[in-house]
C-alpha cells in the first residue's frame, strides 16, 4: 500500500522528471546553453503549475459529482428519483448543465454598472479557487505550506463578501441589493463564531499551520479512539459551531436567505445568466468544499485514519472520505431544515453561536490546563453543557405556544 500512499507525489515527480528530460533534450538539440539557475527555476514553476492544475481538476470533478449527487440524494430524501435522464442514471447531468450554461445568452441589464458587473464573478471565483491551497490532503501533501494557513483561509474568505456586494450593487436591481445586504450581514455575523471555533483548535494545537493542527490530532487514546478534537467536549461544540458557520458562509440551506428563491428571485445572482452565473455557482461549491476541508483539518483529524488497523488505506483517501461525508451531511441538512427568517438568522448568530463559541474557548482552556484526563473532560463538558441548556431553554424554546393554540377550522 506504500505505492498508493505515494501515488500523487510520485506522479508529480514523474511529470517533473519528464519536463526536465524534455527540456534538456530540446536544449542539446537546438544547441542552447542554459544558465545554471534556469533549470531549477523552470522546475519550480512547473511544480507550482502541476499542483495548481491538480487542485483545480480535483475540485472541478468534485463540483461536477456533487452537483448531480446532491440532487439525487435530495430527491431520495423527498421520495423522488432526481435526475435520471442524461446518461447512465443521470451521471452525465453536469455535462448537460454545463452545455446549457455555456450556450445561454449572457445578459447585462441596461442600467447595470458594466465594469463592476463583469468583475464580480471574477472577484468571486479567484479567492474561492485559492482557498484549497493550504489544506493538507495527505501526509506531505500540502500545496502551500504556510505557517499562518488558517489566517490565510479567512483572509481570502473576506474577498467573497466583497464580490457579493459588487454583484448585488452593480446589477441595479432591488432584489440584488437586498440579497447582497443579506449575504453580507450573514457572512459578517457568522464569520465571528467561525473564526472563534477555528481559533480554539489552533490554540490547543499551538499553531496556525493546518499541517501542525492535523499532526496535533494524531495518535489514539485507549488504543482505539483517535485523538481528534471532535472527540472532546469543547471540540465537539466547536466543530458543530464551525459546521453551522460553514453552512452560513457557503449560503447553504437553511442559511440560503441571500438567494431565497421564494422571496428575492435569486438574490445577488438575479441579473446574472449563462457563464457568469455558472461561475458564481462553481465558486460557491468550491468554497463549500474548501471550508469543509478546513473543518476536516481542524476537528476531524485531517488525513488521519480513524482506527489503527485501517491505517493501510492511503491518507489522502481518508481526507476525501471525510470530505464526502461532510458534503453528504450538508445535503441531508438541506433536505431537512426549512429556511431561516432573517431575524432568526441574526439572533441565532449573536445570541447562540457567539456565546457558545466563548464557552467552548473557556472549556478548551480548562481541558488544556486540567491535564486532559477524566477531570478535564468532566469540567469542560460542564462548561459547554450548561450554557447550551440555558441558552436553548431561555432563548430558543418557545414556551406556551403549541399547547395554547386553538385551531378553529382545521380539526
Amino acid at each position, binding site marked *: 500500500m506504500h505505492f498508493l500512499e505515494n501515488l500523487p507525489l510520485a506522479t508529480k515527480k514523474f511529470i517533473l522528471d519528464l519536463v526536465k528530460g524534455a527540456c534538456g533534450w530540446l536544449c542539446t538539440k537546438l544547441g542552447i546553453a542554459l544558465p545554471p*539557475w*534556469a533549470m531549477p527555476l523552470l522546475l519550480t514553476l512547473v511544480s507550482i503549475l502541476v499542483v495548481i492544475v491538480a487542485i483545480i481538476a480535483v475540485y472541478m470533478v468534485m463540483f461536477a459529482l456533487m452537483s448531480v449527487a446532491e440532487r439525487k440524494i435530495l430527491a431520495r430524501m423527498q421520495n423522488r428519483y432526481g435526475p435520471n435522464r442524461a446518461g447512465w442514471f443521470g451521471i452525465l447531468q453536469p455535462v448537460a448543465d454545463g452545455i446549457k450554461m455555456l450556450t445561454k445568452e449572457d445578459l447585462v441589464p441596461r442600467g447595470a454598472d458594466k465594469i463592476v458587473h463583469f468583475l464580480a464573478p471574477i472577484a468571486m471565483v479567484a479567492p474561492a479557487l485559492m482557498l484549497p491551497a493550504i489544506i493538507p490532503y495527505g501526509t506531505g501533501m500540502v500545496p502551500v505550506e504556510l*505557517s499562518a494557513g488558517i489566517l490565510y483561509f479567512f483572509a481570502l*474568505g473576506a474577498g467573497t*463578501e466583497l464580490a457579493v456586494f459588487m454583484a448585488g450593487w452593480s446589477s441595479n436591481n432591488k432584489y440584488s441589493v437586498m440579497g447582497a445586504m443579506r449575504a453580507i450581514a450573514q457572512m*459578517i455575523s457568522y464569520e465571528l463564531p467561525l473564526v472563534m471555533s477555528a481559533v480554539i483548535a489552533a490554540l490547543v494545537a499551538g499553531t496556525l499551520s493546518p499541517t501542525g493542527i492535523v499532526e496535533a490530532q494524531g495518535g489514539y487514546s485507549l488504543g482505539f479512539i483517535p485523538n481528534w478534537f471532535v472527540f472532546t467536549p469543547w471540540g465537539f461544540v466547536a466543530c458543530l459551531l464551525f459546521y453551522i458557520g460553514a453552512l452560513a458562509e457557503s449560503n447553504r440551506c437553511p442559511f440560503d436567505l441571500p438567494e431565497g428563491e421564494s422571496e428575492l428571485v435569486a438574490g445577488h445572482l438575479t441579473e446574472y445568466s449563462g457563464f457568469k452565473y455558472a461561475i458564481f455557482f462553481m465558486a460557491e461549491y468550491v468554497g463549500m468544499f474548501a471550508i469543509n476541508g478546513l473543518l476536516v483539518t481542524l476537528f476531524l483529524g485531517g488525513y488521519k485514519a480513524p482506527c489503527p488497523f485501517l491505517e493501510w488505506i492511503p491518507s489522502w483517501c481518508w481526507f476525501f472520505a471525510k470530505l464526502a461525508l461532510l458534503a453528504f451531511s450538508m445535503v441531508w441538512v438541506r433536505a431537512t431544515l426549512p429556511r431561516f427568517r432573517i431575524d432568526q438568522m441574526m439572533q441565532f448568530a449573536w445570541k447562540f453561536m457567539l456565546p457558545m463559541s466563548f464557552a467552548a474557548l473557556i472549556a478548551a482552556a480548562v481541558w488544556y490546563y486540567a491535564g486532559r484526563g477524566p477531570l478535564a473532560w468532566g469540567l469542560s463538558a460542564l462548561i459547554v453543557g450548561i450554557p447550551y441548556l440555558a441558552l436553548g431553554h431561555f432563548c430558543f424554546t418557545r414556551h406556551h405556544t403549541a399547547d395554547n393554540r386553538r385551531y378553529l377550522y382545521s380539526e
Partner: protein
Amino acid sequence: MHDLFQRLISLPWDQAPQWFFLFPALLMLLAAAAAVMLRNLIHCALCLTLSFIALGVLFIALGAEFVGFVQLLVYVGAVTMLILFAILLTPASEVAASNNPFRSFQLSKALNAVAGGAVAMLVLAGLLAAIFFSPHAQAAVNPAKAATAPAAAIGENLLNHTLLPLQGTAILLTAALIGAALLAKEDKRS
C-alpha cells in the same frame, strides 16, 4: 531567432522575484489615486479596497505573511464593508453636500487642492518621522529578524512588551462600541 532566444534566456531571470514587489506596489498607488479621483463613490470605495488588497499582497511578498493576512482580513473584510455600507445607506444628495467641509468658506478650487496637498504632506511627514525615529525601526529594518517573525513572536510582543497599550486600545474600542450602541438607541426613541 536562435541567437535571440539564447540571449533572452541568458537574462538574469533569477533576479526577477526581487522585483516582484513592484507589481503590488504600483497597483496600490494606481488604485489609491483612482480612489481619490473617480466620480462614483462606490467605485472609489472599490478602488480603495483594491489598494488594500495590493498592500496585503505587498506585505506577503516582503515576507510578512501574518501582517499581510491580517491586513486582508481586517481591511478588506471589515473596513471596506463598513465604508460600502456607509455609502449605500447615505442618500446621494447628502453625500454631495457634505463631501467638502470647506465649501462654506468659498475657497477656490486651486486653494482647495493646495490645502489638501498640504494636509497630505503633513500626514506623510509625520508617518515617515514616526517610522524612522521609532526605537523599533532598526530592529524591523533588519531583514533576518523580520523574516523569522511568525505569529508566535507577534503574540509574544503584544502580550509582554506592549500589554498596557493593548489593554488601553481594548478599553477605547469597548467605549466606542458602547457609545455607538447608546447613540443608536437614542436615535430609535426620538
